């Protein structure tokens, strides 16, 4: 086929997907933002609110509020509990079940919660995943140029039934699927074992073993120092990966060695949170609650490429 058809196909595909995104993407949802602003002003620190109460306070119909709350729930900003809803702190990166568990066990406002994502920047895991992906890519390359007669070997192996390039593409697809499955299993595994939670008054709570329920505890008063350590693989992940991670070391009075939490998401923010609870200075949460919530929910118009400081 003439290459011009491929260029045309690319242009048509780009236009279709681009136009679909452009027309379906809500560039601004004033009701969502209005509700979020109201919630971050009056319902921070897990204060319960109901649909009816919110509707009365905002002077909006209940069905409109309900639709918005569903969206906020899907974005992880709001959680449904018995008797109503609560606003989830934006620096909580836990599943709803683990978030409820953390509130139940700590009996406190959770201002940071996350899993130790050791698999994100572990060199061995990166190497294994790269190998799973690279082997079929190399095979595809060898088949495309018929290096070492590989294409002929594959053709003969299947008795001429199978096209070597299509077979190589098929293997590549299977390896991508395998990679995704391995990633999902690793996520499930870390969720069972390695959560860390910071409470307003309770301090830092963490899992000490797989069957643990946040029994590890560092109270506010016992924290003497906090440090961040980002190694080279975490640094590379932070530059090019999806979630920035880093190790956070917490020095406790009376202990010679720090308690190290490995590969926690947004370590600089966690550092700030721990320093704040140590010093009892948490006003920044209320001051920036709206921005934090919008950032977390990826709600437009929060993301703009602009160097202007938002007031």
């Amino acid at each position, binding site marked *: 086929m003439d290459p011009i058809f*491929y260029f045309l196909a690319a242009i048509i595909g*780009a236009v279709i997907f681009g136009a679909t995104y452009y027309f379906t993407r809500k560039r601004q949802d004033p009701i969502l933002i209005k509700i979020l602003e109201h919630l971050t002003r009056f319902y921070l620190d897990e204060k319960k609110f109901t649909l009816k109460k919110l509707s009365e306070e905002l002077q909006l119909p209940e069905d409109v509020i309900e639709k918005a709350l569903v969206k906020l729930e*899907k974005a992880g900003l709001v959680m449904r509990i018995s008797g109503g809803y609560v606003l989830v702190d934006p620096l909580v990166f836990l599943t709803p079940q683990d978030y409820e568990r953390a509130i139940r066990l700590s009996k406190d406002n959770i201002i940071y919660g996350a899993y130790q994502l050791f698999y994100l920047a572990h060199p061995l895991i990166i190497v294994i995943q790269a190998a799973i992906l690279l082997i079929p890519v190399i095979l595809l390359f060898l088949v495309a140029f018929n290096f070492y007669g590989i294409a002929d070997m594959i053709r003969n192996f299947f008795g001429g039934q199978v096209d070597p390039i299509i077979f190589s593409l098929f293997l590549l697809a299977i390896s991508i699927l395998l990679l995704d499955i391995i990633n999902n299993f690793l996520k499930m595994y870390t969720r069972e074992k390695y959560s860390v939670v910071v409470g307003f008054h309770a301090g830092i709570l963490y899992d000490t073993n797989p069957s643990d329920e946040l029994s590890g505890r560092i109270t506010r008063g016992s924290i003497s120092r906090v440090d961040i350590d980002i190694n080279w693989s975490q640094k590379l992940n932070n530059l090019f990966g999806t979630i920035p991670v880093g190790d956070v070391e917490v020095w406790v009075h009376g202990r010679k060695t720090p308690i190290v939490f490995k590969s926690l*998401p947004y370590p*600089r923010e966690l550092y700030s949170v721990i*320093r704040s609870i140590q010093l009892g200075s948490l006003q920044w949460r209320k001051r920036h609650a709206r*921005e934090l919530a919008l950032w977390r929910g990826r709600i437009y118009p929060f993301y703009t*490429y602009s160097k202007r400081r938002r007031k």
Partner: protein
Amino acid sequence: MSSEAEELKIEIRERFEDAYRLPVNAQISLYIFLELVVIGVLYNFYSGNLVEAFLIFLFVSSVLYPVIIKVRNFYTELIALSLYGATIFSVALYIFELLLMTEGGTSNPNVWMAIIFLLIFGVELFHHMYEKARVLKTKWVYIVDLVLSIFFFYAAYNLFSLIGADIMWTLVLSSISTLMFFFAIKPEAPF
């Protein structure tokens, strides 16, 4: 302690991730640099075959884009999805052309391997380029995933039966591979 508390100013940046990523101009420069490297390599190896060179260029651009460009706004997402559309349409056309040259129609296993490749590649590339699609848990996303899984089962069933597996093995292997496919593409928690 109180003076420390007073002096403590936590600067919450608009975009938290900025603190961890390369500067925006560095991201754009690196992406352009890598694109030029890819063009150079393709010119060296594929100068006689424009179609395959174009496809590889689109594929590598799509894979690299979300890895290098970490700015999140309406325009970067628009570019990502346009690039995805260009890649998937071109790859689909290539597969279609390959199959046109294949004898036997749907009784040829190449057809079903190609369909399976398109299904997996299409969904995984979409998730790679548009992160929200990976974590969005809505009724319609689950319906689409279910429909794609049914297609996948049908394609896997035909493939295994054409390569000579008996009915029991065909059913078992098709079911296992379909479950794997559904598990991989269903919405997941971001953390």
